[in-house]
């Protein structure tokens, strides 16, 4: 009975007793979720347009962040560095299209996946070669991002503290998602992107240039990576360890669906909030540390019942 009480009742009692703390946990989870969602978004973009799971998305986040900070260290003003970094991500997109995607047209997905793993190692080596391996401080203030925090009073004497940078991250993420969702679903290029994902040959036959589409989509993923790099870098620092967060995107994608932009967002938020609440309220029951695997558990359960995710395209198979 004690066990049941500890699992089913006690955590909720705690939540009600300390509402300010509960809200703080929710908020932390929400912010982490937004960042997961941003990473997942990068994956979804490329997956939608080419059916490729882009293993390199995580390192692209690091690479974009390093380029930005690295340029600034060399004496380039912050905003110019930002513009130059966008340029670098554009060049990267063109290079990936020309030297990785184009020679591999019509190859099986697994080959394309392998090529993105290759790209990952290339970017790790290249990034370390150019910018060195040490963690760097994100140039938050120089970019004009807010740094302070605001405290709200909750109930009698409780405090909810919101970091301004987190609020900014949420707002930017929401805007980005809205633009991308409309772009994908309502426009010619968006339709062309989906067409390419479905059938390369047929897409070519209606006059869609694969090269152009791939360059566009890798560039978009690069911009998302840069945004993620700035936001995540501002909370910790920019280092190659960030690459690992890419794996957090996996459960998010499974939950939200590999092909859905809103799915990436909802999935990110569920994982982010679920992780934090699970860790704080249920974690102590098993000695803590469940944050690192809870997301994968949730994803596994989802795979059993809804393999296409919450919002993924339905899997249609006529036999």
């Amino acid at each position, binding site marked *: 009975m004690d066990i049941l009480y500890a699992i089913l009742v006690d955590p909720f009692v705690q939540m009600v007793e300390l509402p300010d703390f509960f809200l703080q946990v929710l908020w932390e989870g929400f912010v982490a979720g937004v960042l997961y969602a941003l990473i997942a978004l990068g994956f979804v973009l490329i997956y939608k347009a080419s059916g490729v799971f882009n293993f390199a998305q995580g390192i692209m986040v690091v690479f974009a962040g390093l380029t930005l900070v690295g340029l600034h260290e060399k004496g380039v003003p912050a905003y110019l560095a930002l513009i130059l970094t966008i340029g670098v991500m554009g060049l990267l997109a063109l290079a990936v299209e020309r030297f990785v995607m184009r020679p591999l047209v019509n190859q099986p997905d697994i080959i394309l996946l392998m090529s993105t793993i290759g790209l990952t190692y290339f970017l790790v080596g290249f990034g370390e070669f150019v910018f060195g391996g040490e963690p760097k401080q994100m140039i938050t203030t120089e970019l004009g991002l807010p740094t302070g925090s605001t405290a709200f009073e909750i109930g009698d004497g409780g405090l909810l503290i919101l970091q301004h940078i987190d609020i900014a991250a949420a707002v930017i993420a929401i805007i980005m998602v809205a633009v991308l969702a409309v*772009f994908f679903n309502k426009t010619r290029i968006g*339709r*062309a992107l989906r067409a390419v994902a479905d059938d390369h040959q*047929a897409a070519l*036959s209606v006059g*869609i*240039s*694969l090269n152009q589409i791939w360059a566009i989509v890798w560039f978009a993923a690069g911009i998302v990576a840069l945004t993620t790099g700035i936001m995540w870098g501002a909370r910790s620092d920019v280092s190659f360890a960030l690459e690992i967060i890419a794996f957090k995107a996996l459960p998010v994608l499974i939950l939200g669906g590999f092909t859905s932009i809103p799915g990436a967002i909802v999935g990110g938020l569920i994982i982010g909030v679920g992780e934090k609440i699970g860790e704080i309220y249920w974690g102590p029951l098993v000695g803590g540390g469940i944050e690192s695997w809870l997301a994968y558990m949730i994803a596994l359960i989802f795979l059993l019942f809804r393999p296409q995710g919450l919002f993924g395209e339905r899997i*249609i198979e006529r036999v």
Partner: protein
Amino acid sequence: MNARVKHVELHADDDGLNPGDVMLKLENVSLSFGGVKAISDISFDILKGEIRAIIGPNGAGKTSMLNVINGFYHPQQGVITFRGQARSRMQPYEAAASGIARTFQNVALFKGMSTLDNIMSGRTLKMNKNFFWQVLNIGPARNEEIEHRLKVEEIIDFLEIQHIRKTPVGKLPYGLQKRVELGRALAMEPDLLLLDEPMAGMNLEEKEDMSRFILDVNSQMGTTIALIEHDMGVVMDISDRVVVLDYGRKIGDGTPQDVKNNQDVIDAYLGVSH
């Protein structure tokens, strides 16, 4: 009658050719994959406004022929002239931009997308409002989208597929998928339409429908059509001229009647006694 007038409007491009002029000309085209000769030294032409059938036993090189015409394959030898211009190593999307549309032997539709979106994708080349407007999806890009939607609705009416407008095409029966694929090709308002076995796997009724659509496209929109088909009844009924391939070589070329009486063709289809 009104409906017909509308359909004539669908084909707005004027390529400066009169009916009967040579639209596409292939001269001594050869294509091989490694040591395998898919097409050897084939020459024929397609005239504006005609329905040109390409027939031949399995493995004769018919589909390779279409792939050469729309740029999927590049022949090692020979000259291809489209509307008076010789072309070299044309990419499929460039062929599409120059007015060549096609359908595939094994339906190649965008399965996750609706009928409407599939056909809209055929308008890709006709839509050119810039990237910036599209990202925002306002103003000019939105108006353009609506304008093209109207054209697509005409095609949907023409092919009598109104009822499946919003259905993901992966769910449709085969015959309807073929029809949607034809719709996507028509949305490109092509000068030359390549159909790879448009009636494969269809029952009699579906074949009759498809034949009617092909004839209507040809007569009402003035589209030149090259088609591969195995059903000889259909080929003899709807085509103006027929080219016959066997083992990558051309063995017959002429009106359906000529071809029917050609001894080489009869041998290829029925076999020769040794």
